[in-house]
């Protein structure tokens, strides 16, 4: 066991897989010599050589196409998209190609690729370094979407993703890289070293894809969330007068609806929380499935707390960000009507 922050955990997962499997290669913009703009690949080129960890041209569509082609040639590429705001040029390759390849070829070809990409706001990145685009991909059949909330899960899930024979999107909430974030930028930031999920095995282990995790038990209400908002929701739960359960989805697709439904049917009340814009976000899908599964048990409308339906505005980052206050308001509303 070692203390790791999320950057180190992600780095370690790649290190472990580069070591174990020669078919694993890592590439993306600035991931090679430099080690990535967030240091997630720091030292890996030096350790494994230029041919296994290398830079690419600035063409996200090309990066994913390269990964698909390599995957078809029996390799396991891990591609970094520098910011998830820049994943859109790769949209066609992800949606029409990686996600459809196994299906359209009758199972003869597939794309065992992992796409790592930092997402989310709270770092003063403005509208093009803060987006949470997962809700665009969760509508696409054939690609798995993962978003860890802590170093332990990040490493275990990333190893699972690399080993997975289907394409996986691995969203890294960049605000969590150095420590948990409770939604209040004025609060002194805290590192992962004091957090139990900052204890990370140095070697190989996995966290299974498709399994949600209850991170706080409660009787009154269930919060379903993922990524940065796990910590914000936990903080709000602490402050709340109610006994709140919090579920960290970890994987969005495939969704662990049984786990969710068990909780919501038990508490009878629910809030879905994410940082992405509200309309058409993945929260709507979670809400819909809960409504389908737990309708007769629901004692109040399911609440949604999300980013506003606007681009992430630079000067109003904290007005955009759905912080503890907004989660608390929602708890109150769902509990008290």
């Amino acid at each position, binding site marked *: 066991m070692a203390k790791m922050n999320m950057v180190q955990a992600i780095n370690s997962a790649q290190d472990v897989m580069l070591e174990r499997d020669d078919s694993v*290669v890592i590439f993306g913009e600035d991931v090679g010599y430099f080690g990535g703009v967030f240091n997630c690949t720091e030292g890996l080129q030096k350790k494994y050589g230029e*041919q296994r960890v290398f830079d*690419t*041209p600035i*063409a996200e*569509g*090309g990066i994913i*196409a*390269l*990964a*698909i*082609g*390599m*995957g*078809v*040639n*029996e*390799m396991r*590429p891990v591609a970094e998209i520098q910011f998830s705001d820049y994943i859109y*040029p790769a949209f*066609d*390759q992800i949606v*029409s*190609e990686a996600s459809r*390849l*196994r*299906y*359209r*070829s*009758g*199972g*003869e*070809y*597939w794309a065992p690729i992992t796409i790592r990409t930092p997402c989310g706001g709270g770092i003063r990145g403005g509208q093009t370094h803060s987006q949470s685009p997962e809700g665009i991909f969760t509508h696409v*059949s*054939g690609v*798995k979407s993962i978003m860890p909330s802590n170093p332990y899960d990040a490493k275990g899930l990333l190893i699972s993703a690399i080993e*997975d*024979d*289907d394409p996986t999107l691995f969203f890294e909430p960049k605000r969590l890289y150095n420590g948990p974030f409770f939604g209040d930028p004025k609060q002194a930031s805290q590192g992962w070293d004091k957090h139990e999920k900052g204890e990370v095995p140095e070697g190989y282990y996995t966290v299974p894809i*498709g399994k949600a995790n209850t991170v706080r038990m409660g009787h009154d209400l269930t919060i379903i969330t993922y990524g940065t908002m796990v910590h914000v929701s936990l903080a709000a739960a602490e402050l709340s007068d109610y006994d709140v359960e919090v579920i960290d989805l970890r994987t969005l697709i*495939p*969704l662990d*609806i*049984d786990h969710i439904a068990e909780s919501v049917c038990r508490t009878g009340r629910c809030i879905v929380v994410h940082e992405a814009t509200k309309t058409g976000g993945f929260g709507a899908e979670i809400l819909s499935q809960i409504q389908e599964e737990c309708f007769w048990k629901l004692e109040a409308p399911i609440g949604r707390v999300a980013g506003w339906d606007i681009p992430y505005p630079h000067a109003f980052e904290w007005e955009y960000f759905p912080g503890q206050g907004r989660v608390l308001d929602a708890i109150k509303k769902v509990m008290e009507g």
Partner: protein
Amino acid sequence: MVPKSGKNLNIPSPRHRPGEEPEFDNLDIPNAGTVSRPDIMTDPKQMFDYANTVIRVLDMKNNALGEWDPKLSPDDMRKGLYDMLTTRIYDDRMQNMQRVGKMSFYMKSTGEEAVSVAQAMALDKKDMLFPSYRQQGLLISRGRDLLDMMNHCLSNSKDNCKGRQLPIMYTWRDGNLFSISGNLGTQFCQAVGWAVASAYKGEDAIAATWVGEGTTATSDFHHGMTFAAVYNAPVLLNVVNNQWAISSFQGFAGGEKATFASRAMGYGMPGLRVDGNDFLAVYAVTKWAADRARNGGGPTLIEHFTYRASAHSTSDDPSKYRPEDEYEVWPLGDPIERLKNYLIEIGEWSEERHKAAMEEINAMVIKKYKEAESFGTLNSGSRPEISSMFDDVFKEQPDNLRRQRQQLGV
């Protein structure tokens, strides 16, 4: 404020439209045999001219001329001729079957058979192919059973794509042929990825990929070129310039400003422009580029200068946008006729053998087609299992798909 029509805006327009007399008189085409053949490791900077000419071996009088003559054995040439013929006859049959409602869709490669057949022959079987939808000759030359191809086109119970793809979007793993995409161009940089992996593994296999000239405008084309150049990938990047992209002539892809082969220059790779209707020339440039790639020389861009003799697809009526007889005046003739006449000229073939071959192929195609129909067509007979439509979205079926399958009751 704005005038009724664009004042200074330049919109390309083709040489002729329906009702006009087609002619290609001032096309700049050199005589066969006049272009030199550089060493395979020549510096691309020295190769600008090869992108702006047309490399030709067979002239219109049935001679094979010049340095590019690959000197194929008569047997090889007969195999090429046979496969091109098979491709054409197969195409005709399948199109007819589409017309009578047995398939939803079809696309012929008529006039372009040399591109796929000669290239398949010039490559090794271990080389990986990433075609567009108009290189069925690749499968035929590599020996794919026509029955399998037909089963796919009919989306029947034996379709290896399990009824999921439009006809002609073949997949053939055992033949090292990638799954054809409906989205234009996407395979171009994927082929580069495959080639990069081959180099990484230190293997000898190379990749080859094809797009139409219209598809050079896609981002994938540029990505393929850029990534291939940067990583010096062992890959053949083919542009089949058949003059048309559905109704848009090649000027809408920039073909009036520069040749497609000359795109290569800006990426520092060789660009070769070849007479796409000349089996021997296509074979020779492909061999050159494959040898170069295998030798560590990296990628080559090849423009096949040809003509799409048929409609774009069964959904298309070309007489709406070009003279119906444009193909007949195409100055580079028909690839099958040219190879056939050459073989006859050198005493290795005859009209009789040709006729016999056609009949043999015809009979074989009809027989295969009957057999294929016995496994079902799109509208009758057997289909893949309905429940299989929920398979292969992921390697393992997730719960939501299992539930949806149950909901459908299959």
